[in-house]
Each structure stands twice: as C-alpha cells, then as structure tokens.
C-alpha cells in the first residue's frame, strides 16, 4: 500500500478545506463571468471615441504640430493610428479655443504638406507661422498642419471635415493628380479603418465611391469588445507615451541621414494608372471630392493649390514630367483643374512649377526645407489675397 500524499510544506490548505473540490472551477467561472460582463459593457458603450479624446497632449505635454504618422515608431516617437479622435486630440490645434486675434488657416494635403523628411520646424505650416503674417485687421495668421502622408482626396476630405470643428478662417488644400484617381480613393488604411465616417461623407456629398467597399474594416460585435479593440487601445496608449519623447526631443519623424533621391531619368512609359493617352478620362478622377470639400467648408474660404512638383530634365523627360506623371496626363489634369475652378467658382492656384527641381528630395512632391520655405512665401500672398471679411 502506498503512502498517502505528503502535503507540500509551503502549501496553503485553508482554501481547499473551505471549498473542497469546487474552488478552482468557481474562481475560473467568476473570472470568466467578470470578463464577459466587462466586454459586454464595452460593446454597449463602445467608448473608443471617448478614449481617443483623452490625451496627455496639450495638457501634460505640448500638442504635436502635425498628425501622428510613423513608419518607425521607436525612432520617430510617433505611430500611425486609425482613431481620428486620438489623432486630433494629440494635435496642437486641439489645445485652446481660437483667440480673437487669430486668423486660423488649415493646411490639408499629402506627405508634401505634412513635411516628409522635414523636421517639425521646417514644414509648410511652420514656415507660414515664422513669417508672423498679420492681416490688415490685425489678426495674426496661424497655420495648422493637417496634412497626412497618403495620396487620396477622400482622405483629405475626411481630415478637412474633422478639422472644421476647429473654426478655421481659411482652408488651403494642396492637391496633385496622384490623389485624384477614383480607384485609389479608399486605399489608405486610415479610411478603411474608419468606414462609418467615410460612408457618411460618401452619403452626404453623394460621392461616386462604394459605401460597401470590400476593403472597409467593419467592427462586428466581437470587434467591438475589449479584445477586438485591443489594437486601437494599445495604439492610443503608445501615442500617449510617445508624447513624453515628443516633448523631450521635439522629434516626430525619423529622418535618415541619406535617402534615394527622386528619379531623374524616367521610364518611357506613357500610362497613368489605368488611363492611357491621349486624354484623361475625367470620369475616373475624383473631381467631385473637391466639390464636396467646397461644401464642407461652407462660408470659409477654401483655396485649392495644385502643389509644386519636380520636373525632370533627364532621360525620357519628353514623355514624363517625373516618376508619377506622363506629360499628356498632367497637362490634361491642369487644364481640367483650371476649367473646373472657373466653372465652379473655386479659388484655385496652379503652382505646379513654382519650385526649382533642385528643391525636391526623395520624391517628385517632397520638397526640401528651402523649397518649402519658398512655397510658404507664395502662400502668404495667397492668404492675404483670399482672406475675406476684412476692413
């Protein structure tokens, strides 16, 4: 006959004696019920927007000067996230109500406006603010960078619609042809992860886009639980922690010491996306999104700028202007923009060749610091010319 089991010297037997045999199942059952209950409450309340609105930025640390976007969070001290609330509440524009003497200008656009490869103090918005531009009515122009490094007019419209709650006095929307093709309007992850907001835009402005785009990431009932929302919650938390590094270092983008320069010699390719020469099919361009932008801003002046781009002098430059654009397509686009602006009464300025080729960095639309400063000087004139309700 074998000896009875010896109790472990460190074992606490009070628990077992009090609830013989049932203790573990009961603990597990209670934990499971509590877990389900918390998740159920979370599904019902679904507080992600409220959580996104909670922010250390503008309270414990300074607001960011541009929307969070990061390829390499550990070096950029920021990250790309999909919560619009969290993105905007981390931005300096969310800091304080607009002052009476502030003339608020929102800059909307792609990576060029956001300032890819430029430190925060050398972006378009930063240079505009450095000019300390004052209007005749003594209001000080204060520009806010709401650019985001993805090329899609619908993405711009989404950020513009969010930005309108900050009472802008003027919106400057920098666009380029690459943001226009209809087939790439909904590709940015930021849009795909915000299907409801995008659907609202599509419905409100009757945009020629699919409200049931298969790329949309719809949160089902499980996706609305804490488990399903863990990525959003973790991203929000990381953004808050990176705020300390932003405050300490002023870094919000990893800028490598060297980069591959924009392409000078170009392939002899005449195609632009699915479109072939000799003319653009305007039905495949998202011109309607620009019109939607005009409606979204209401009475606020919206100035559309065809942003500067690199114009190659290299091989096959007689066929293409640069990596993005064959000449025929871009020329057609400029014509379309000019005609549409005239027809619709848009405030439009074509600055496509305003900046010298030497001022472009790693892409046909990314400008150097001095190129950006030159563009800022041009925009000062635009702001002065388009500011309304002035004495």
């Amino acid at each position, binding site marked *: 006959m074998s000896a009875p*089991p010896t*109790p472990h010297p460190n074992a606490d037997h009070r*628990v077992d004696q009090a609830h013989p045999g049932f203790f573990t199942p009961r603990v597990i059952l209670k934990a499971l019920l509590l877990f389900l209950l918390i998740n159920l409450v979370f599904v019902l309340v679904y507080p992600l927007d409220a959580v996104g609105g909670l922010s250390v930025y503008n309270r414990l640390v300074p607001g960011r000067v541009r929307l969070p976007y990061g390829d390499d969070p550990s*070096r950029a001290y920021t990250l790309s996230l999909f919560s619009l609330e969290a993105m905007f509440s981390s931005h300096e524009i969310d800091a304080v109500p607009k002052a009476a003497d502030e003339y608020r200008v929102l800059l909307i656009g792609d990576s060029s406006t956001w300032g890819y490869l430029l430190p925060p103090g050398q972006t378009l918005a930063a240079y505009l603010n450095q000019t300390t531009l004052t209007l005749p009515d003594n209001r000080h122009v204060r520009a806010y960078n709401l650019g985001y490094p993805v090329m899609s007019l619908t993405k711009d419209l989404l950020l513009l619609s969010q930005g309108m709650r900050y009472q802008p006095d003027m919106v400057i929307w920098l666009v380029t042809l690459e943001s226009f093709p209809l087939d790439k309007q909904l590709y940015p992850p930021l849009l795909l992860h915000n299907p409801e907001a995008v659907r609202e835009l599509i419905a409100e402005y009757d945009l020629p886009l699919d409200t049931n785009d298969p790329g949309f990431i719809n949160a089902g009932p499980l996706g609305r639980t804490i488990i399903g929302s863990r990525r959003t919650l973790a991203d929000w*938390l*990381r953004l808050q922690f990176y705020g300390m590094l932003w405050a*300490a270092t002023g870094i919000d983008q990893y800028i490598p010491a060297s980069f591959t320069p924009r392409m000078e010699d170009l392939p002899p390719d005449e195609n632009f996306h699915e479109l072939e020469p000799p003319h653009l099919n305007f039905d495949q361009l998202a011109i309607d999104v620009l019109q939607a932008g005009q409606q979204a801003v209401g009475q606020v002046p919206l100035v559309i700028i065809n942003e500067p781009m690199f114009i190659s002098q290299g091989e096959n430059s007689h066929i293409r202007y640069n990596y993005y654009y064959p000449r025929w397509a871009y020329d057609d686009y400029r014509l379309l923009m000019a005609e549409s602006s005239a027809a619709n009464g848009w405030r439009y300025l074509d600055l496509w060749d305003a900046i010298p080729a030497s001022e472009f960095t790693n892409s046909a639309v990314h400008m150097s610091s001095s190129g950006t400063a030159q563009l800022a000087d041009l925009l000062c004139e635009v702001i002065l010319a388009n500011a309304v309700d002035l004495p």
Partner: protein
Amino acid sequence: MSLLQILIFGLFSMAVGCLPPARWRVWVLLAGSLLSVYWLQPSIPIRALDFWLPSASIGVTLLIWAITVPKDRLNLRSNQAAFALIAVLVLMISMTRYSGNFCCLTPSRPPQIVTVLIVIALTAGLLYLVYRAGVTSRRMAAIAVLLIIGLFFLLKYSPLSQSASAILRRLSGQDASLASSFDLAWLGFSYLAFRLLHVIRDYHSSKLPAYTAGEFLTYALFYSSLTAGPIDRSQRFIQNDLRSTVTVTTSGRLRGLERILFGIFKKFVLADTLALIALNQQIAMQTHSSFWMWVFLYAYALRLYFDFAGYTDIALGLALLVGIQLPENFNRPYLKTNLTAFWNSWHITLAGWFRAYVFNPLTRALRISPRRFPVWSIILIGQIATMSLIGLWHGISWSFAIWGLWHALGLFIHNRWSDWMHPRMAGVGANRNLNLGLSLGGWFITFQFVCLGWVWFALPDPSAALQVFRVLFGL
C-alpha cells in the same frame, strides 16, 4: 518567452502537476525541459547554430554531471534510460529537418541527421571517458570550470563573440564579413553556467549529493527558469522538490496561476509599455532637458524591474504548477531603505550565489591571511571583487564594470555608515518621527543611487553615460 509559449508551458505544467504517481514527473519534466531548450532558443543567422547551442547546453550539463557524480553510488548503467531519452529526443528534433514547416521546435532547419548522430556518439564517448577518469575528476572539474568561464567570456565579450561568429560563419560557408557579436545568442547560458559552477564548487567542498542524470538535467535546464532564472541550488531543487511525491494541491495550482498572471501583467503590460520611454542610447543623445531625462531614467529603472520580476513571477508560477517552489528573486527592492537591503532583495539568487562563492570565501581568506588587513579594507576588497564580477556577468564592458564598482562603493559606504551610526542610534529607537524620517531619507537616497547606477547599465559606453549625468544635473 512569448505569451503563446507561456500558455503552452502553463498547460503542460498543469498536466504534469496532475500526473499520478508523482515519481513519473521527473521523466516528463526532463523531456519537457529538453524540448524547451530547443524551442526557446531564438533564431541565429549562422546555419544550424540554433540547433547546436541548445545541444551544447545539454552536452555541457551532462559533462558536468559525469564529472561530479559520485561513482561509487551511481553508475552509468543505472542512467541508461535517461541517456536513451536524451538521445531519442535530440534525434527526433533533428529529424524535424525532414518535416517541412510542420514542426516548429527549432527556429531554423536542424542539421543533417548523420552529423547529429556523429556528435551524439562523440559526446557519449567523451562522457564515458570523463566518467571513467574516476580519481582524476577533481582535475576534470577544474578544467570544466575553466571551460565554462571561457565560454562565458566568449559570449559576453563582444570582440571575441564577433571573432567566434566569423569563424563559425566561415565553417558553415557563410559570409564572415556579416559576423556580429549578437550572433552567439546562446539562450540561458548565463544561468546554466552559474548552476553548473555551483554544482562543481559544492562537489569540490564535498557538499554535493548524488543525482541521476535525469534529475541533474532537469535541475540545470528546467524550462521555467531556463531563460531568466532564478538560480536555484541543486540540493533544494532536486532533494526537496523534484524527488518529493507531493501531490500538487488546488491552492498550489491557484498560487501558480496567480503568480503567472501577475508576471504577465508586469512583463507584458507594465514593462513593455515603460520600454517605450525607457532610457536608451538614442533617447540619451536626443534629450537635453533634465526633467525628461529623469523621467526616462525612472522609466528605465521601473521597466527593468517589472520585466525581470515579471519573468521571475512566470517562472515561479510555472514551477508551482508542477510542485516545485523556486526561490524568490525579488522582494520589493525599490522600497528598501539602504543599499545592502536593496541587494538582498534584487536578483536575490544571483547576489546569493556571489555571496556564497566569491564574497564569503574571499573575505574569509583575507581575514585568515598572515598579512593582517584592516576590517574596512577586507570589506572594500570583497565588495569591489564581488560587485565587479556581478557587473561583468551582464557583459564584459567598461559600462558594466563601472556599474559594479558604483554599487561596490555604495555598499562599502553604507557598511561604514551603518557601523558609525549604530552606537549613535541606540537612544533614538523609540523616536518614531526620527525613525520615519531616517527611513524616508534612506529610501530616497537608495532609490536615487540605484537609478543613477542604471545610467552606466543602460548605455553601451561610459562617455554616453557621462553625457546623461551632465543633462540630469544640468551641467
């Protein structure tokens, strides 16, 4: 360990804890530990090295067993089953080479099975020779100590690791110019080495009981403590727990699960979040504000604690599930009111190891030395030797050496201060406010001292650490 690995180890441990009779446990734990040595090993760019390093862990452990086992009480034949199990498992793992992506025990494809068979045969032959050496075992033990320390030096000294990596790359037909000191990521060797050194030292002191090969391997390579300790003593692990026929109780299981959950929270929630802002070389060079530098330094200190203490909790919890009570490694170290108390509660098993095998023998030798040393110098020499070695255990570099010296001097100063204060404190025992003030002051100074010490620890070179000190103090 990843969360998935912790889950699988947890389920495995729960199953082992339920095994009746308990004597089977050692076999299952041995098999589990051997498999985990391969499974936990991270990927290495040198071909098949992530198979050979875990194999080397097993080989070195068996070698030390063969050297230290009392030949009059245990023979090779009585361990045949353990040897067979080890050989079969290693061969099975090497055969996963032919299973495509089906098996995932090793991070890359194991080497040719013929090569593995040859190495197993050579290892078996070496073990036999070592075992037969009999009376010369003590000399063998000395050689084994040198071998372990040599391996340790190779792994911890970057230039040497890089050279070794280049040689291994050449041998495996790879580009030697890509060699890096990080290539020789031998999982758990730091802890394994200290367990084996402890066994050899106790063998020398005739304090080592007889263990079977299976027991010895399970102790040295126990899966829960393989990656981050604690460094248990073989006598306690094997005699008290492994051989015990204790039935794992429900409360034991619950305590284990609770410990694992706390560990997961500390490691994956607290430590990994703090890691975002913890001081490192990049942050150190980019931060010019004293306030933020202090914040990042405190974040580093807390991150280090939660990371290590979290892993320890997980290790202890997994062990509890199979009825093994591993020693504690932390006891609220950042709340201690003096540096000696800190070192009695931070990485307790490592500090205990060095106290037992370095500090005590060294100070004893100095005390009985014909040349009479003053007490203070004995303490100073003992602290400097011990803490420098603890520093170098983390890596052979100036930064770790200075970190060790920093603490050695701190411990020495505290020792002298305590001696000076002791008679003067006789009358203030009843004064609660004074005691409270002294405790708070002691805690504050200790915590700051430890945190400032982490500056040397966190940064790869002393010049970067000095730059951080300049920013911290606004110099």
